[in-house]
């Protein structure tokens, strides 16, 4: 299936969950990333059970703490 991750379309295996995608994509600090799926936030407790489908649009939103 095709997914659009951070604006880039790529091919992934069917049936991938959000939790698996986080691993596949090597997301830094996976425990503390916010995930948007088709313009809805995925609840942090639901990454394992959220199965992705063809043409899904995913954004990872990262904590960024610095500033001074």
């Amino acid at each position, binding site marked *: 299936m095709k997914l659009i991750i*951070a604006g880039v379309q790529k091919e992934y295996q069917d049936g991938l969950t959000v939790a698996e995608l986080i691993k596949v994509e090597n997301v830094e*600090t996976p425990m503390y990333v916010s995930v948007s799926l088709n313009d809805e936030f995925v609840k942090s407790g639901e990454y394992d059970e959220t199965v992705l489908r063809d043409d899904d649009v995913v954004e990872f939103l990262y904590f960024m703490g610095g500033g001074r």
Partner: protein
Amino acid sequence: MAFSNEQLERYSRHIILKEIGVKGQKRLSQGRVLIIGAGGLGSPAALYLAAAGVGVIGIADADTVDISNLQRQVIHTTPDVGKAKVESARETMEAINPDIKVNAYKTFVSADNILALIADYDFVIDGTDNFAAKFLINDACVIARKPFSHAGIIRFKGQLMTYVPGEGLCYRCVFKNPPPPDAVPTCRQAGVIGAMGGVIGSLQAMEAVKFIAGAGKLLTGSLLTYDALSMEFRKVKLPARRDCAVCGEHPSITKPFDYAAAVCEVL
């Protein structure tokens, strides 16, 4: 209040812009912006707001200038090392533009002082370096219905978003709660490229200027991310969140509170 000839000259490149004009420049001269943090983000923001003739600029920070700050905190100079950051920042801003008034607050923000600090200002710039302060500023600005610019920078990356009451999400909508201390790398541990503060802090100043002058569209409901290594900007549309603990329909947070110890105290 009419502009003097010198002021007309000083602000001529603004006044010639149809989105600013004399009217917008007057709004700027009557505008009030509070910058929290006189560091990597706050330095460029303060320089540009001073140069733009924003009438009153508040700057809050409890730190003194350290030599390790000078790689990115461009409002301070080598002879300023050891001086209070807010004093050093005030001197630079006043030297750039004698038209403006600078209020220097030599303090970190806390639940005890934040509402009083932001009360006098039209727009707030979050230039802090830790999640406790970022959540505190968000909550206080939501509760006080105060527009603000959030930003974060680390390594070769930066991001920002603007909150305006009633126009899209707040920072807590996106990130819910701060990560535990040390769970997410900070600038001191991870480093940050100096010019990143210049890019992102200048964008924060841009949002403040646009808000006050009434020009263009603000960065509400989206997060703008910048990756310097791939040289890519992305404007990521953020989903709505109705159940936010502070800006949602039934908020559980109704007054500002402090999270435990800052993560990245001295940069």
